[in-house]
Structure formats: C-alpha cells, structure tokens
C-alpha cells in the first residue's frame, strides 16, 4: 500500500498558467531556448506561430493521407478490373470490359475515402489518441485550457528539470500561477 501511495504522489510535471496569446508564445520561446525536450504548450485554440516558437517540425499527417489515397485509388482500379473484366466479364453495350475512364470515378471516390481515413487516423495516431487518462486532465485548474487559459507544462522526466530552477524560469516568463501536477 505504501508503495502505491508513493507512486501516485510522484510528480508528473510543472504547470504554468498564462493569460494571453503573446505571453504564451514568449514563454514557449524561453522554454525552448532553455533546452527542454519533454515539454508542451496547451492552448484553447492553435496559436499562430507556436509551432515555430516551439521548434516543431512539419506534421507527418500528410504521409498517412498520401498512403491512404494511394491504397484507395489502387484498390478501386484493381477491384473494378477484377470484378468486371476478370472474374465475371459481361459485355454491356459493346463497352470494353475494363477502361480506366469508367473505372476512374469510383476509384477517385475511394482515393478520397481512404485518404480521409488516413488523415484522421494519422492525426489520432501521431497524437497518441484516444487517451482517456491523462495526469493533466485530473487537475481542476488545468480544465480552463479549453476555456480561456494557456499553459506551459514541463515534465519531470526532462533531464533539465529541477523544481526550483524550472519554476524560476516560468516565473520569469511571466506566469502568475505555477503548480506541480501529480502523475
């Protein structure tokens, strides 16, 4: 029992609250240049310029969309060829058994369909969602993130993390409310 209780009280990270878009952008720049790696910014809406401030690279979702689209188009063409020209060919109106033109509209629709699934699933996969348990979601104050507040969270697992130093950095960045969240 004592073991589990020590485990639950293990800190997850330090949370600093900001109230404006400019202050969170500035804070993100500071935290980034301080050399932290396991940290994130939480905002009610995507803040313009934040990816650059955090030093994030271009999202990889596009690859999922592309692969989905290619699979969709290829499966459409192959399916139609297999069904109408190979497995059970029937002459209809003297039209060719298989033509890329008549097979295009359904294959195009499948490109879109699979590409859309690729985008959504890729986005969820890259974001590790669905994840219904998250230490931050237990925090009462943090729930304002979907309302009107902005947060910087630096995880305790970060090699540069030290409770005193990190707190001082976030205070310098202009945060008025800083607390340590438990895992």
């Amino acid at each position, binding site marked *: 029992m004592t073991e589990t209780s020590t485990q639950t009280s293990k800190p997850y990270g330090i949370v600093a609250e900001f109230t404006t878009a400019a202050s969170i952008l500035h804070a993100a720049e500071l935290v980034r240049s301080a050399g932290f790696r396991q940290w994130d910014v939480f905002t009610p809406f*995507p803040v313009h310029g934040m990816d650059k401030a955090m030093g994030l690279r271009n999202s990889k979702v596009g690859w999922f969309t592309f692969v989905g689209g290619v699979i969709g188009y290829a499966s459409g063409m192959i399916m139609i060829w297999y*069904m*109408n020209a190979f497995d059970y060919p029937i002459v209809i109106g003297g039209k060719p058994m298989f033509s890329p033109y008549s097979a295009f509209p359904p294959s195009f629709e499948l490109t*879109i369909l699979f*590409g859309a699934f690729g985008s959504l699933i890729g986005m969820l996969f890259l974001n590790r969602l669905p994840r219904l348990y998250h230490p931050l979601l237990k925090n009462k104050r943090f729930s304002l993130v*979907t309302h009107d507040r902005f947060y910087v969270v630096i995880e305790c697992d970060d090699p540069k993390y030290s409770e005193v130093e990190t707190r001082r950095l976030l205070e310098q960045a202009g945060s008025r409310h800083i607390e340590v969240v438990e895992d």
Partner: protein
Amino acid sequence: MAASAETTLDLVEAPIRVPQPPAELERTPLVANGRSFGWLSNRVASLIENKAPGWWWVLFSISLLGLGLLIFCMSYQISTGVGVWGDMRPAMWGWGIVNFVWWIGIGHAGTLISAILFLLRQRWRTAINRAAEAMTIFAVMCAGIYPLIHVGRVWYDWWLFPIPNANSIWPQFRSPLMWDVFAVSTYFTVSVLFWYMGLIPDLAVMRDRSKTKARQFLYGLFALGWTGSNRAWSNYEKAYLLLAGLSTPLVLSVHSTVSLDFSVSQVSGWHTTIFPPYFVAGAIFSGFGMVLTLVIPLRSIFKLQDIITIKHIETMCKVTLATGSMVGYAYMMEFFICWYSGDPNEAFHFSNRALGPYQWAWIPMILCNVLIPQLFWFKKLRRNLVLVFIVSILVNVGMWCERFVIIVVSLTREFLPSSWHYFRPTWVDIGTYAGTFGLFFTCFLLFIRFLPMIAVSEIKGVTPQADPHNPLGGAKVPQFVHEEH
C-alpha cells in the same frame, strides 16, 4: 545598415507616427462587441447546458411526427411495392429521384463552407461551419433513403456494393449509377469524419465544463482525451487542412456524378455536357438557401448576433446571388445549345418545358432561382433579415422545381409519343417527402441540443485577442502611436 540603425534609435527615442487608415477601410471584426474567449465558450455551451426551451419541444414533437410519417410511408411502400408511388411508364423516376437530387444538393453548401472556404482562407466561415456541416450530414441521410427504397426490393440493396453474392455477379462499374453509389457513400462518410474531427476540441470544451457524471463521461469519451496540446494542434491543423483539400474535389465530384446519372443517358433535356458544373452550382445555391433558412432563426432565438453577425448573413447572400446567377447562365446556355444543335427533339423538349403542361414548375424555377436572388445586389436588402429568410426558402422551392423539371418533364415526353403521360404524385410520394423533413429536423434539433452548434475553438482563433501579434492578444507595441485624423 547605418540607416536601419538610425531608425531603431528613432524608435526608441521618438515614437513613429503611423497614419491610421480611413474608417471605411477597416475590416468589420468577425466577432462583434470584442467578446472574450470565455464569453464565447459560455455563450455556445449555455445553449446545451440550459434547459430545453419550450419552442424546442414543440418543434421536436412536430419533427418526430414527421419522422413517424416517413417510417409509415416507407413501410407501406416497401411492403406493397414501388407502385404506390406516382411513377408510371415512361416516367419511372418521379419524386423519389427528384427528392434525392434535391436533398443531396442541399448538403453541398456545408462542405463548401467547411472545405472550400477554409482553403480560400475565408475566416468568417468559422461561425457557421459546424451547423452547415451538420446540415450536410442530415441532408445526405435524407437523400440516401430515396435510392435505397426506390429499387423496390430493399432487401437486395446490398447488391449495390461490391460484396460477393450467391449468383457471383459483381456490380456493373460501367454505369454512372454505380459511380453514384460510391460518390454518395464516400460523401457521407467523409462529411461525418470531417465533422467529427472538427468536434473533438469542442467536445473537450464541453467535457471540461460538464457538471453531471453522464455528460462528463460521454463528452469525455468522444473527446478522445483531447488536452489542447500544441503538438496535437500541429497535427490536427495539418489533418484539417488535408481533409479540406480532400473534401473540395469530393464535393465537386458528388453532384457531378449525380448529374452523370442523367447526362450519360440519351434522353433529351438530359444528354448535355453542361450538367456537371450546372448541378454543382445549383447544389451550392440550394445549400446556401438552406443554411440561411436555418441560421437566421437560430441566431435570433439563441442571441448569437455577436458570433453570426449581419456581415455573415450578407456574405452568404452574396454567395447565393453568385451561384443563382450561375444557374441562370446554365439555363440560358441550355436553351442556346438546344437551338444551336438543331436537334428537333431537344427543340421540342425545351419549348415543352417553358410552355407545356408542366409550365407551373418552370415558371417558379426561373423566378426563384434566377430572378428573385437578384435582389441581393442591394446591400439594404441583404441586411433585411425577414426578406433574406423568405428568399432563402424560395431558393429551395425553386431548386425543387428545377429537379422536377429536369427529371419528370424529360421522362414524360419520351421519344415515343404513344407513351407520353402526365405525372401525378400519390399521397405516399407526398408523405415520404414530408417525412424526410421530419427526419432532417429531428436530427438537427437533437444536434443543437447536445452538440456545440458553433465551432467554439475555431471561433476563438479568429478573434483579435487570439493573435499574439495584436495588442489585444497581449503584444507590446508601445512605440507606435496612431495618428488621429
């Protein structure tokens, strides 16, 4: 270099005087009265959190009755046969297909708003995109019912899909009707995906402010654990952009494919190459009509005038005017091509449209689709909500007449005069059509009751305080002093 250093010094010492642009060049803000993030959340969420108003229950009961009517008419039609509809040789496509095309056209405005206007960076779309996308989904549901019950033996509907069956015959992909199956089902699926993805951050908004366990659980479940992390937003925005990019050709292809159902055939009045763009323009036109019909009462009842401003209504009127005029152009072009081709069947068909027994449908078609929207050239009229509401309804009356004119007038005057006949709908036709309104409004009323009908997270992003480089967003620009006129 020296010059720039000097300017920097100047900046520090004496403030630069920047002349302010004249008032008429200022952009109207997208959210009126400078509302805060919190206000936006509270306002939109209150529509769900407050008790359902009395009018909601009245409308919901009426819609449920309509849904009951739909289920009754469908059951009667399925158990008896398609003969209960007014479809009669040679017009084997009657109201069933008219309503299919009409409903699916209405859906197109939702995707136009969510996808095409997103790509065009029309930021005003954020106020209406959620409701318009919901409208799309429900309209496509209403549309999808018709082909499925029109086939007669609904228990064979699965033959439409490439599923192996006992006869080992596959669907015939050389027919546009088969393309339509793929277009409509893809359209529905992708619209739902797009809508749901847009909802994820807003479901998190609802989750974080829910008071009851049930709400916390359900909103929490569907919010998938969204935290608003910027690493997540980065992927989310990319996925949103890609979905918008995929939906744009999709929405253009859907009504094009629907139009190919007609134009690939030999029937006069159908066999024309203008159909795909003409159908897409008409679809967006009717969809904007429906968006206006839904949004104008909602913004007044729910007091959303600060979010859906008069500017939004005006812009939608302009889109309606533009697409209505495109439809008008297509009508003219049809007549021109008919004369230019010199085909006697076409010539007969088009004079029959305007002067024949279905003139009662042709006149409102021209009036409502081409002439009445011209009122929107005038700013005063675009800002008159009562007028806009009436016109928006007339738009859809006109578009229904257009579908009817295209389908029924062409079919009842076939190449063989001995099979000519006058189409009359039966009570089942009328009941099924009225019933789909029941389905549509049941879904829509449930939507505005349980889901945020305004994209809260998106609308927060278009306010001036969301911009980190705007003084309202906390940016410090003390050196610049605006010169007063």
